């Protein structure tokens, strides 16, 4: 059923009883050409592009929980392509472009809101680093603007210009960046993949990877054995656990990142604002809640819950950046398990096992990458060849000395 204003009216007039499930509850077949482990944004996007762009239709997505129960449903919904390093920027810009056409591509309103992401700077050194980044963006053809303090005051008057511990000197703005409705991304890709024949199998946990002669032949699951021609992992925070089933040695640690939402408020914050004196970032959802977060809790964790000390620190940064937040009440906190890589950048690559493919290491940045991650991973799986924009995101980059270290923090995941 195609979605449109017309379909809404038509269905309403028949009592809204004729809407169909947005995707089928598929039961697993015995064999698929491609099995994708992980029914989150990346797994579903991969399945969608495999079927739609690369003609691989005999595909199933296996999800151990409910669809979208991982990080796609527990992030702060930010979409941007303001990276500095050549290993990252072309990839994220490719993603940004896919975002811009996603609603029509999927016939699903993911509510992409290009309201602008601004990253504040508080010292000359930080400004110079942002200029370097802004120029790197321009090199890739991505518009960036340096907003100086006076201009910023007009644009965002409620920031802490006068009493801040670290003065707000300006910001780097990407106007095309913004937010999207996170759950809708998962549902939209699921619906799209389903329409192209992909089987989406929820509540189906992979328990083992079966190999014969060094090749993956299928997976054992809670719904029985499922055979496959190629196996693709998009398991985010659970990458190490799934990888272990195939004896993969991975440069990944799972960390917990909290996010928060306030009570609903009338429109007050029109951009995505990122504090440079810490990691704090905030935007307002269309429902009115202020959605925000900051750094990871710091220890490895598979529990989707956070720590009060970190939460308090996030609030400190918040009121330091926007004093007027002080009386706004925080409604809820939640947490996701991040697949933090050793250089803070993702991995989309083959593995030492010929028909096993890997997509992981998304750290904080997985949501914005969803379309490109799916596209590039599908490209890799279908053609056995790396998509050009993902050519630096290789698994062997650490051994070869080509880390893509955006933060310059070195091989300690909790510093990225």
């Amino acid at each position, binding site marked *: 059923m195609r979605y449109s204003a017309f379909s809404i009216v038509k269905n309403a007039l028949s009592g809204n009883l004729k809407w169909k499930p947005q995707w089928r509850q598929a039961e697993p077949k015995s064999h698929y050409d491609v099995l994708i482990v992980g029914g989150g944004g990346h797994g579903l996007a991969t399945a969608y592009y495999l079927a739609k762009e690369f003609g691989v239709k005999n595909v199933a997505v296996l999800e151990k929980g409910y669809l979208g129960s991982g990080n796609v449903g527990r992030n702060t919904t930010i979409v941007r392509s303001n990276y500095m390093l050549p290993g990252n920027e072309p990839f994220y810009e490719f993603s940004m472009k896919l975002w811009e056409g996603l609603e029509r591509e999927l016939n699903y309103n993911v509510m992409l809101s290009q309201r602008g992401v601004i990253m504040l700077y508080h010292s000359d050194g930080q400004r110079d680093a942002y200029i370097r980044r802004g120029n790197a963006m321009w090199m890739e053809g991505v518009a960036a603007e340096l907003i100086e303090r006076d201009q910023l005051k007009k644009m965002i008057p409620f920031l802490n210009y006068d009493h801040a511990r670290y003065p707000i000197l300006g910001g780097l703005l990407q106007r095309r960046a913004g937010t999207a409705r996170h759950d809708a991304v998962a549902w939209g890709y699921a619906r799209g993949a389903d329409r192209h024949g992909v089987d989406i199998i929820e509540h189906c946990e992979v328990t083992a990877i079966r190999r014969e002669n060094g090749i993956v032949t299928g997976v054992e699951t809670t719904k029985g054995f499922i055979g496959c021609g190629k196996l693709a992992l998009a398991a985010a925070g659970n990458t190490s656990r799934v990888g272990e089933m195939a004896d993969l040695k991975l440069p990944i640690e*799972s960390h917990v990142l909290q996010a928060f939402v306030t009570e609903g408020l009338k429109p007050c914050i029109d951009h995505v604002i990122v504090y440079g004196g810490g990691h704090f970032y905030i935007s307002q959802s269309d429902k009115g809640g202020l959605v925000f977060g900051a750094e990871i809790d710091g220890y490895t964790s598979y529990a989707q819950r956070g720590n009060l000390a970190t939460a308090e620190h996030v609030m400190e940064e918040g009121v330091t950046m926007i004093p007027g937040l002080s009386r706004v009440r925080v409604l809820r906190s939640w947490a996701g398990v991040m697949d933090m890589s050793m250089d803070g950048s993702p991995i989309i690559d083959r593995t030492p096992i010929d028909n096993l493919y890997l997509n992981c290491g998304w750290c904080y940045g997985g949501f914005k990458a969803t379309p490109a991650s799916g596209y590039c991973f599908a490209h890799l799986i279908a053609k056995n060849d790396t998509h050009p924009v993902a050519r630096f995101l290789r698994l062997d980059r650490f051994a070869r000395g080509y880390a893509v270290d955006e933060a310059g923090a070195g091989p*300690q995941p909790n510093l990225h």
Partner: protein
Amino acid sequence: MASLITCPHCGVRPKEEFAIRGDASLLRPAPTASDEAWHDYVYVRANPRGRTLEHWQHVGGCRRFLVVERDTFTHEVHSVTDGAAFARENGR
């Protein structure tokens, strides 16, 4: 854990007194060890769901690196030992 760590030197302390360095189960290879050994030491992590050993430095207290044996799913702490003592016992 997550909220409190019992430092063997300073007693029960809140999480914010600690800085977390990472996996404590890794042994620094000999300088002559293979490229692979060095790669694995610096870049590869077992990342278990369950018990793990981690270095937490008590920066707000004695500044010792502690080896915290902890469950990454339940967040239960099983033991906390001094990092140097742990290192000696494990043959460094």
